[in-house]
């Protein structure tokens, strides 16, 4: 495996209203989006977001994250960052 592209967590912002009607829920739509990515590594959906933001977080490789940016409903993909207690 390419260690430089090992899976990390990304937060994916999605235009929620563009969900195709064939998906019964946003979760199933998001699952479909990441399952359709080219897959040297399996992807994993961590959370779906519906109020604070619209989208999901998932474990992806950097190249998969880059691929996501070309999806018409994806607005932004950012790496999951650690924060600290103040």
């Amino acid at each position, binding site marked *: 495996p390419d260690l430089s592209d090992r899976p990390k*967590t990304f937060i994916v912002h999605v235009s929620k209203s563009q969900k195709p009607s064939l998906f019964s829920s946003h979760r199933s739509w998001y699952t479909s989006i990441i399952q359709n990515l080219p897959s040297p590594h399996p992807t994993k959906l*961590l*959370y779906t977001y519906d109020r604070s933001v619209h989208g999901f977080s998932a474990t992806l490789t950097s190249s998969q994250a880059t691929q996501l940016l070309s999806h018409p409903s994806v607005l*932004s993909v950012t790496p999951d960052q650690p924060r600290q207690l*103040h």
Partner: protein
Amino acid sequence: TTHTPNFLGLADSFGLWPNSDYADDVVIGVLDTGIWPERPSFSDSGIGPIPTRWKGTCVTTADFPSSACNRKIIGARAYFNGYESHIGRLMDETAEAKSPRDTEGHGTHTASTAAGAVVANASFFSYAQGEARGMATKARIAVYKICWSSGCFDSDILAAMDQAIADGVDIISLSVGAGGRAPPYDRDSIAIGAFGAAQHGVLVSASAGNSGPNPFTATNIAPWILTVGASTIDREFPADVVLGDNRVISGVSLYSGEPLVDYKLPLVHGGDCGSRYCYEGALQPSKVQGKIVVCDRGGNARVAKGGAVKLAGGLGMILANTEESGEELLADGHLIPATEVGEIAANQIREYIRLSQYPTATIVFRGTVIGSSPSSPRVAAFSSRGPNSLTPEILKPDVIAPGVNILAGWTGATAPTDLDIDPRRVEFNIISGTSMSCPHVSGIAALLRKAYPNWSIAAIKSALITTAYTLDNAGKKINDLGTGEESTPFVHGAGHVDPNRALNPGLVYDLNVNDYVAFLCSIGYSPRQIAVFVGKPTGSDICTRNSLASPGDLNYPSFSVVLSSDQGLVKYKRIATNVGADADAVYEVTVNAPAGVEISVEPRKLVFSAENQTQSYEVTFKRGVGYDSGERYGSIEWTDGRHLVRSPVAVRWS
């Protein structure tokens, strides 16, 4: 907390507490390290049934049974998917349980500060003894555990914010953020999540960070967030150093064990014994044994230095500030007799060691002293500061609040020092940080939410900002412990929160989500970037429909202005809403312009004839004679004779 309600002027007989019914039924979502629910601060005695609108729940785990929740703690969840994704699966649940239980202490402290119940006779080994109360004693707490032993991850924070909004919290208290510098808004999950919260009418109160005293360090600085810095109160824990030549040097400590012997002990500097910062294992026992060791602040945890001295056979420790922390004194519950001294005193002690043939010292612990401190509040050196690193036209932090030596609830799982060699367990602990100031303001915001259920979150923020004060209890300008000089709006924002005045601000500067969209347009964000915040596609005309001439035109309750040789004149617009009890009100302006900056306000009189009526004005900031560098400060004040609506002005030369 003990004493901070008194320092803030909160009372049972008048002002914000009785006029808000102590925030009864308001829900504060605390996103933190969880909670230790058995602490008396979380008793639900005297609180009514859970609000019917509440949709949240308490998860049940082996160490967090259903009985952990009550009418005070009405929600409790834990978010660890992002954490596990980073560090691997949490296998040893005895070390870190996948539950809302707080094994760190921070979350129990912040939750009890924001909304803890009344607890009689609270103390930390008799220090800071008194009646402990949260700011909003009847508010309900919803716990969202997002921080774990190796950090707090955006993916978990967003999941918690998402759920908190769905559950129906009114306020989110977030003592978490980036360290050092704020990420761009569209890469900052807290900023984006807080925007979503604002869309749902949820106020996010957040800590500015502990990266002071350097400038440009404030985090959580999006204009829809209430950003809180930290300051001292009029309570100290003196523990003086008496040197061999009988000089007495002031310090602070929460040490509570066996006293030192009643004669002076040999005194050495850690730097001469293997480690100036007194790292564990680095001190040479042969040079430390039976002595008091001076350890420089920095490098490792303050309390860890005493632990290192103890392990090396030392009998006492003097924590010596350096230039970085200046005169800021943080009291710690050291494991051995120890005290912290400011930089000036530290230099005197270092010089005494250097020049004396047989340097000696002892430490005298004097307990808790209230009211006799030199002046308060003073801004903590660690409190992160402006100017705003992302949008210099928005002043951040917004306000300061008590964040130094705060007593509040603590976990039963961890020692107050967080040291493995410390076997003590306490109900209350005294700690410092903007993490501690944030929940003070979260609780006060909850009180205002109850007092004014129809106010927008921007109106609540405005009330807190325009009523803040800038003079200490000696009548002088608030001091900055980071510099030893007068503090400035880039350090303290509008000033120290004044809850009772915030109850009756007279005028507020209101904002809605469209205004924040206009703000994003004004800083050059593209429709695609803005779509991340609003969660849906935005047409290319989004910034035509929502426009501001500049980010400084956002109807913010404070002013931050950048002048330059290219731009010697800046104009900002503001719209004030009359929320005073009198429908008919006439406000006149007083401008306190700094030297070298001309400020004019037009019109100079705002006439209101109805409640909630709005009036607008324009402020012109013009470079005056001789101003070509540095920062200048002033204020713009509107008064009708009963209310004083004060906006700080900070001007920077670029």
